């Protein structure tokens, strides 16, 4: 198969979980430097599609390539460090401090601990560095997840309802992070049910309805 010019290239992708068809015949491309806003009602399959793009869920059918790698091949594991995902719920460890959470990601990824502290400063959380994540508000935890993406600099950033529970300054932060990824010729897929809030951050939109892109 020739090398792909797209960061995401899906053709006829379907996902079945048990007896339920969640996605069917999804045709989707996202080019470098592009920010795609994916909209749809609850249950339309937005989060499932995002998980497929994140290589966390294998498609049941069709052809899917992410960052040039076919998702059927074992190489998909190698692509993961180049992906960033901020999902519905924070993925922090509640017992660890906000900084320790970032430092864990830094150690695993081979990034310096100084970069973790710098990323925490970039999201305005340096004063709360030692606070256990379990005692931080949802919005603070979200900011730390944004800091993780600033630190790891993914080529493909996936955001699931990024505006939830964020104050206006944090929303500006999301816009800044998205702009940073695009400047590096990365790409962003942003899932939301709120078209108006996401519109300033996307270069293109698509609607998911009944498990397929309209």
């Amino acid at each position, binding site marked *: 198969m020739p090398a792909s010019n797209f960061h995401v290239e899906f053709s006829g992708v379907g996902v079945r979980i048990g007896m339920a068809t969640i996605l069917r015949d999804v045709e989707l491309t996202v080019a470098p430097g592009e920010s795609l806003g994916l909209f749809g009602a609850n249950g339309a399959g937005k989060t499932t599609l995002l998980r497929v793009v994140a290589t*966390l869920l294998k498609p049941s059918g069709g052809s899917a390539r992410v960052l040039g790698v076919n998702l059927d091949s074992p190489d998909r594991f*190698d692509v993961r*460090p180049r992906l960033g*995902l901020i999902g519905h719920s924070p*993925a922090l460890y509640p*017992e660890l401090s906000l900084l*320790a959470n970032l430092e864990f990601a830094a*150690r*695993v*990824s081979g990034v310096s601990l100084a970069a973790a502290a710098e990323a925490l400063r970039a999201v305005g959380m340096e004063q709360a560095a030692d606070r256990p994540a379990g005692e931080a508000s949802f919005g603070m935890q979200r900011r730390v997840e944004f800091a993780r993406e600033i630190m790891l600099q993914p080529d493909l950033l996936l955001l699931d309802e990024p505006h939830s529970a964020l104050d206006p300054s944090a929303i500006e932060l999301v816009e800044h992070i998205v702009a940073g990824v695009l400047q590096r010729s990365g790409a962003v897929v942003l899932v939301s049910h709120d078209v108006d809030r996401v519109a300033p951050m996307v270069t293109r939109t698509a609607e998911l309805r009944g498990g397929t892109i309209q």
Partner: protein
Amino acid sequence: MNSGFWRQAMAVARRDLERERHAGEVVWVTIPFGAIALLLVPLAVGINQDVLSRIGTGMLFVVVMLFGVLTSIRRTNIETPPQRDAIALLGIDPVAEFAGKTAASAVVLLVFEVVMAAVAVALYGIDISGWWWMIIVLPLTAIGLAELGTISGAIAASVQAGPALVPLLVTPLAIPLLLGATQTVENIDPDGGNLSWLVLMAIVVLVLAIVGVLTARPLQETR
């Protein structure tokens, strides 16, 4: 195995030990309950020193096994699906994750075992003349139980059965470890006659390590 593997394994072990240090579940909950369990037996069978010294070693390892299962259940509970996704996307080697989790669990279990052994000696009046075997037996038991707990936790997460499945998986598979540990310490033989029990334990630990390595990737992918 490259430096990235060891870096990731150490990061996972450090994370789990840090979490345990902050939560303090083993120190403040499991160890006191284990000590109480050891205390209940003399109350139940009566304070007959002969009986107690005879059953002491067996009781110690029964308590270690049962509370080892509890620790495994706890460790299964502490990882949420978003945390698992985040781990996968950090590109962590599943075998490094297995090694790191097992190492952290083994350290926690070893601390538990050492405290329980001291309590058992104090309560049961066990003859400690041959207890130098413990230097080998306790780490082997801790590593074996930690491997079992890590594998069982991953299986439970994979089939989305929750923590209820973990004791069902761990308890029967821990029997060779329990037998090996008890028999090694109880049948102390200066000529090395109890070496066969140690070999059994070592084989169990090795087999579990192989199973853990071989199943790490498939279990990470299906959880």
